[in-house]
C-alpha cells in the first residue's frame, strides 16, 4: 500500500481491503456530488439542505477514509468537513474563496485516493497550503491566495470578503497554552505518529514535542498552542478516537482547575479500563444489566434535560421528498452479453415467424397464437434490455460546468453555461466515445468563440457570453449541439488559411462548405495558440471520432454573432425495426423509422430532369427519385422484375423516394457492424442476418438523402 496508509486495527481475521474498491467508488461519487453542489451553490441564499448535503459528502469520505486507513485523505477531508460544519451551522457566510478552496480540496482528495487505488509509492503531494487556507477560512479570515501559476489574463477576482459573523464560541480561545496531551491506551501506539505531522503542516497550530509516557500503550505530548481542546480533539480524531485522549493544561493544579475531557487515566496498577471508544447510557432501553463489563458513562451535568425532541445538535435534515432510486451495480460485460443473447433471440424468433408463414393458420392455431405471443414478448424484452445501457446525457454534461468555470477564469472571460435536454438518453458505449469530442468543442467555444468581456461590451453584447449544450432525439438519431454567442467563424480568415495551406477553395463556396474546411488536419486560425486548444490538432480528430460512431458534424456560424456545431449520432441500434425491400434478387433493409410511405408508381408520375435525375410527384410535392438498382448496381437478368414501387424515406429534414421492386415485409433486425471484419461501405449503415440465415445490407438513409442534393 502507499505511504500514509495504515491498516485499521483489529486482528488478522479482518481484511478490510475487500471493501476498498467500494469505498473508492463511493468516495469518488461523493466528491463528484460535492463538486456539483458547490458549483450550484447560491452564495447569498444557500439553504440548510444544500449546506448539509455538501457537509455530508465530505463527512462520508472522511469517515470511510479513516475507517479503511487512508489517513491522508481523512486528514484533508476532515479539514473540509470542519469548514463545512461551520457553514452549515451558519457560523460563517459562504464566499467564493471558500468554494474555490473546497473545490481544490476535492480535487486533491481525488488525487490522493487515486494514488491509493493504483498503489503509487513515493512522496504524496503536499496539501499543507490547502490545509492552511481552509483553516484560515474556517477561522473567519481571508487567507493569502494560493500560490497559483500567474494567470495570463487579468482574472476577475472576487473582492476579498469581509469575514462575517464572529465564530460561535464552540471553542473558547484563551490564548496560548501549554498542554499535556496523553493518548492511550492505544492498541497500536504508532497510530498517533501523525499528530506531530499535524503540528508541522498546519500553520498556526502550534508546536509539539513528545515526552516519555512510562507506559507501552500510551504516548504523551507537550504542546504549545492557541487552539481549543475541542479543535485539537477534532484534529486528532482520525488518528485516535476522542475517548483515548486527555488534554491537560500544564502548570495547573489537580483536576478541577484544568480542562479535563472525557476519561481519566486510570492510576497505574489499576486494571486497565476496558477498550474505549464506545459506551452505554445508564438506564437506557436495551442496556445489558448486571455483570459483563457494561461500561456505563454518564454525562449527567445539571443541564436541563433536553426535551425528547432532541438536543442542540444541528436539526436533522427535514425529510425531503427525495426518492432514492434503488440501484445495483452490474459489470458492463454482463450487460453486453445479455444484449447479445437477446439479439440472437430476435433472430431466432424472426426465423420462426418466417418459417411459419407457409403453415395453414387454421390447422395450427395454437402454434400461431404462441408465435404471436413470442413476437410480443421478444419485442418487450428487447426494449427493456436496450434501456439498461441507456443513460441520460446529464452524465456527459456534468463535467462541463466545472471545466468551463476553471477555463473561463483562466482566460479572463465570463461565460455562462446552459444545458438543454439533459434527460435525453444515449447508449453508454456512445457516451464514453462522445465525451472527448464534445469537450473539445466546448473548449473551443470558450477559447476561440467567446470574446473577452471588454470586447463583448464594445460590440454591444452582454459581458457574459453563453455556451449552450443541448441534446435531443430526432428520428433514429440523437443530435447534440454546442452553441455559443461569441465571435463566430470568419469566412475570410478561413479561406485565406486554406489557400495558405494549398487547399483548393473558391470564393463562390457556400458558407457551409467553408466551415467544413476547419476539419482539415492541422487547421487553426487562432492567432495565439493557448495551451487550451487551438493547436490545430482538434477539429479533424473530432470529426474522425464522430465519423467512427457513424455520426456527422455540421457547423453553422454567423460572424459576430456566434457559432453552432451539430453532432448527429445514430442511436446504437443493436436491434432495429426494419422494412425489407427487394431489388433484383437482393434484399435490402430500410430503417422503419425513416420510412414515410410507399406506393406503386405509374410512369407518368415520374419526370426526368437534367442530368438524368428523376423526380416523382407525391401529392403536391416533387421529390428526387433514387433508383436502388443503379446505386447498388444490382444485376438484372432478362425477363426479370423491374422496379415500380416507391418508398419515401425522410432523413435530415429531406425526403427522397427510393425505387425498388417489391416490399418484402417488416421485421425486427439485429444490426451487425460491417466494419468489424470488412470496412465502411457507402450508403450502407450496417448489415443484418435474415431469418433464412442470409446477410442483408441495411441502408443509410442519411447518405442516400444527401446524394440527391448536389
Amino acid at each position, binding site marked *: 500500500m502507499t505511504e500514509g496508509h495504515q491498516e485499521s486495527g483489529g486482528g488478522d481475521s479482518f481484511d478490510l481491503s475487500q471493501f476498498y474498491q467500494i469505498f473508492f467508488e463511493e468516495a469518488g461519487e461523493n466528491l463528484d456530488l460535492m463538486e456539483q453542489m458547490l458549483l450550484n451553490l447560491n452564495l447569498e441564499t444557500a439553504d440548510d439542505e444544500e449546506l448539509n448535503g455538501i457537509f455530508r459528502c465530505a463527512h462520508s469520505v472522511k469517515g470511510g477514509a479513516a475507517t479503511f486507513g487512508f489517513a491522508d485523505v481523512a486528514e484533508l477531508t476532515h479539514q473540509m468537513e470542519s469548514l463545512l460544519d461551520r457553514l452549515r451551522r451558519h457560523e460563517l457566510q459562504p464566499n467564493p474563496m471558500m468554494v474555490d478552496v473546497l473545490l481544490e480540496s476535492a480535487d486533491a482528495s481525488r488525487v490522493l485516493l487515486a494514488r491509493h487505488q493504483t498503489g503509487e509509492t513515493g512522496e504524496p503531494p503536499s496539501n499543507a497550503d490547502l490545509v492552511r487556507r481552509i483553516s484560515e477560512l474556517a477561522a473567519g479570515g481571508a487567507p493569502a491566495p494560493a500560490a497559483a501559476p500567474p494567470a495570463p489574463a487579468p482574472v476577475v477576482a472576487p473582492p476579498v470578503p469581509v469575514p462575517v459573523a464572529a465564530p460561535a464560541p464552540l471553542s473558547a480561545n484563551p490564548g496560548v497554552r501549554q498542554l499535556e496531551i496523553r493518548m492511550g491506551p492505544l492498541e497500536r501506539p504508532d497510530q498517533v505518529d501523525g499528530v506531530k505531522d499535524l503540528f508541522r503542516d498546519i500553520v498556526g497550530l502550534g508546536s509539539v514535542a513528545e515526552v516519555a509516557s512510562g507506559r507501552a500503550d500510551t504516548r504523551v505530548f507537550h504542546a504549545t498552542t492557541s487552539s481549543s481542546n475541542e479543535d485539537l480533539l477534532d484534529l486528532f480524531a482520525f488518528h485516535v478516537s476522542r475517548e483515548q485522549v486527555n488534554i491537560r493544561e500544564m502548570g495547573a493544579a489537580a483536576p478541577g482547575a484544568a480542562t479535563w475531557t472525557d476519561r481519566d487515566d486510570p492510576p497505574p496498577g489499576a486494571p486497565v479500563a476496558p477498550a474505549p471508544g464506545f*459506551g452505554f447510557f445508564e438506564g437506557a432501553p*436495551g442496556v445489558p444489566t448486571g455483570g459483563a463489563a457494561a461500561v456505563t458513562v454518564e454525562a449527567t451535568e445539571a443541564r436541563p434535560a433536553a426535551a425528547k425532541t432532541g438536543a442542540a*445538535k444541528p436539526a436533522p435534515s427535514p425529510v425531503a421528498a427525495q426518492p432514492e432510486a434503488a440501484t445495483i451495480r452490474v459489470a458492463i460485460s454482463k450487460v453486453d452479453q445479455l444484449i447479445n443473447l437477446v439479439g440472437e433471440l430476435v433472430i431466432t424468433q424472426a426465423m420462426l415467424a418466417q418459417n411459419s408463414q407457409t403453415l395453414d393458420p387454421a390447422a395450427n392455431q395454437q402454434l400461431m397464437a404462441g408465435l404471436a405471443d413470442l413476437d410480443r414478448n421478444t419485442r418487450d424484452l428487447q426494449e427493456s434490455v436496450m434501456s439498461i445501457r441507456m443513460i441520460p446525457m446529464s452524465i456527459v454534461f456534468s463535467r462541463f460546468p466545472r471545466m468551463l468555470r476553471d477555463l473561463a477564469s483562466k482566460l479572463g472571460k465570463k461565460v455562462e453555461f446552459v444545458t438543454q435536454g439533459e434527460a435525453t438518453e444515449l447508449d453508454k458505449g456512445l457516451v464514453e466515445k462522445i465525451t472527448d469530442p464534445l469537450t473539445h468543442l466546448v473548449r473551443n467555444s470558450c477559447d476561440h468563440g467567446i470574446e473577452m468581456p471588454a470586447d463583448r461590451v464594445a460590440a454591444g453584447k452582454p459581458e457574459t457570453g453563453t455556451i449552450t449544450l443541448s441534446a435531443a432525439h430526432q428520428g433514429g438519431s440523437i443530435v447534440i449541439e454546442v452553441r455559443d454567442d461569441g465571435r463566430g467563424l470568419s469566412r475570410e480568415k478561413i479561406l485565406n488559411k486554406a489557400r495558405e495551406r494549398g487547399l483548393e477553395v473558391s470564393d463562390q463556396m457556400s458558407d457551409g462548405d467553408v466551415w467544413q474546411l476547419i476539419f482539415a488536419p492541422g487547421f487553426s486560425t487562432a492567432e495565439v495558440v493557448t495551451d487550451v486548444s487551438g493547436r490545430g490538432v482538434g477539429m479533424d480528430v473530432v470529426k474522425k471520432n464522430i465519423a467512427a460512431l457513424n455520426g456527422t458534424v455540421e457547423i453553422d456560424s454567423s460572424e459576430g454573432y456566434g457559432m453552432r456545431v451539430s453532432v448527429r449520432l445514430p442511436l446504437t441500434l443493436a436491434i432495429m425495426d426494419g422494412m425489407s425491400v427487394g431489388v433484383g434478387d437482393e434484399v435490402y433493409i430500410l430503417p422503419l423509422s425513416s420510412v414515410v410511405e410507399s406506393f406503386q408508381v405509374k410512369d407518368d408520375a415520374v419526370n426526368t430532369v437534367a442530368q438524368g435525375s428523376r423526380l416523382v410527384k407525391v401529392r403536391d410535392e416533387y421529390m428526387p427519385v433514387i433508383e436502388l438498382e443503379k446505386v447498388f448496381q444490382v444485376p438484372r437478368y432478362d425477363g426479370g422484375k423491374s422496379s415500380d414501387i416507391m418508398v419515401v424515406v425522410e432523413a435530415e429534414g429531406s425526403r427522397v423516394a427510393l425505387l425498388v421492386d417489391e416490399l418484402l415485409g417488416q421485421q425486427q433486425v439485429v444490426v451487425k457492424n460491417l466494419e468489424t471484419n470488412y470496412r465502411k461501405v457507402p450508403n450502407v449503415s450496417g448489415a443484418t442476418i435474415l431469418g433464412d440465415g442470409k446477410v442483408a445490407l441495411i441502408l443509410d438513409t442519411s447518405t442516400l438523402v444527401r446524394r440527391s442534393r448536389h
Partner: protein
Amino acid sequence: MPLILAVDDSPSMRKMVSFTLAGAGYQVVEAVDGIDAYEKAQSQTFDLVLTDQNMPRLDGLGLTRKLREHPNFKTTPILMLTTESSDMMKQAGRAAGATGWLVKPFDPARLLEVIKKVIK
C-alpha cells in the same frame, strides 16, 4: 440467529459492517438511511439496530426517536455509530433513547465486541 439492522448511507461502511456481522454468525439487514430503516422496521423485528448518525432524509437521532415510539422497538438495543463523542452528542443520543454509542472509525473487532455485550 439474531437479526441486526445496519443503517448507514455509505455503501462501503454498510458492506464492512454487514460482512463483519455475517461472519460472526449474525443475520443482517441493510438500510441506506433513517427512512429506509424505519420502513424495514415495520415488517420485521430486529434484535439490534446499528445506525450511523449523519444520513440524508432522516438521521440517526431521528431514527432512534421514531423507533422508540414503535411498540416493537421500545427496548431493542440501538447503537449509534458516530464520529462525535462530545457531551452534546451523548446528551442528544440519550435523549433520543439510544442504548449506547460506538465511535468511528472503529474496527471490526471492536464492533463485534460491543455487539456481543448488548445483543439479546
